[in-house]
């Protein structure tokens, strides 16, 4: 469980760190604690894994990784561990998950692949397929971004 102070720290740190000489002092003042208390608390929350990392979230599309695709795979349940390990071994794969299936949807493994072009993504999917020996897959490109926002916690 998070303490009320920790919840307030999350709420403050998700709004963006001020671009001033002593940014943590500015945040601490709003929270009614000292700069050093806040720094200690942040380090503690990082150690406990509440804060995964501290720093910048970067928009990758602008940096040469112009194309990405979600490749979905139909992998037999008892083969998921082996296939997932092979998928994850590709440096172009940023995320690899196994998910529940549902309704008429049979695909259970998901990889996000990043390339410089759409064709590069197709080629990557083919290479991954050959490496893992999984032939039933689909390459889903995003045709339109309808929403992309960082989560804002504890705002209700």
């Amino acid at each position, binding site marked *: 469980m998070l303490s009320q102070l920790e919840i307030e720290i999350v709420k403050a740190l998700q709004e963006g760190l001020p671009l001033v000489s002593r940014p943590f002092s500015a945040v601490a003042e709003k929270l009614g604690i000292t700069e050093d208390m806040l720094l200690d608390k942040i380090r503690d929350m990082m150690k406990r894994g509440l804060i995964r990392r501290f720093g910048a979230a970067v*928009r990758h599309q602008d940096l040469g990784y112009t194309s990405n695709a979600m490749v979905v795979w139909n992998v037999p349940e008892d083969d998921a561990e082996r296939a997932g390990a092979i998928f994850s071994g590709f440096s172009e794969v940023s995320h690899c998950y196994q998910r529940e299936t549902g309704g008429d949807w049979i695909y259970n493994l998901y990889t996000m692949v990043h390339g410089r072009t759409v064709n590069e993504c197709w080629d990557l999917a083919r290479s991954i397929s050959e490496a893992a020996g999984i032939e039933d897959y689909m390459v889903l490109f995003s045709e339109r971004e309808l929403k992309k926002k960082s989560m804002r916690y504890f705002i209700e």
Partner: protein
Amino acid sequence: MELDNLDRELLNIVQSGFPVTREPYKELAEIMGTTEEDIISRLKRLIDNGTIRRLGGIFDSRRLGYTGTLCAMKVPEENIDSVASIVNGYNGVTHNYLRNNEYNMWFTVLGRGSGELDKILGEIRAKTGVEDLINLPAVRMFKIKVNFNLTEG
């Protein structure tokens, strides 16, 4: 958008090694051999032009008590905008993309426990009238990599 070498180096450092210290920008300036003012003005520009989406804490939603899932819907072409505005209206919906599939609308949603998630998905079904909505929660995570090295290539 133009990035010079110092911008790229700065982006690499602030993605994973942002100093949690009293004067972080001054410390970055010392690492990179420039001034605190230069670091602050570069970061301001990278935030203003959208290269940096956010500078601050990146949280582990599960450890904060949130549960996340991925959902997909079959939305008739003519209803895409109205359905998107209903789905996107939820704070917990952080990503939503149209994709080239019969299941054409794909969104991620976070809620405080599975109770809130079920509530949101039930409301989305009711408000949009879309019955083909599949909920695909992760059962196993093999890899998550959020940092890309920007200095190569």
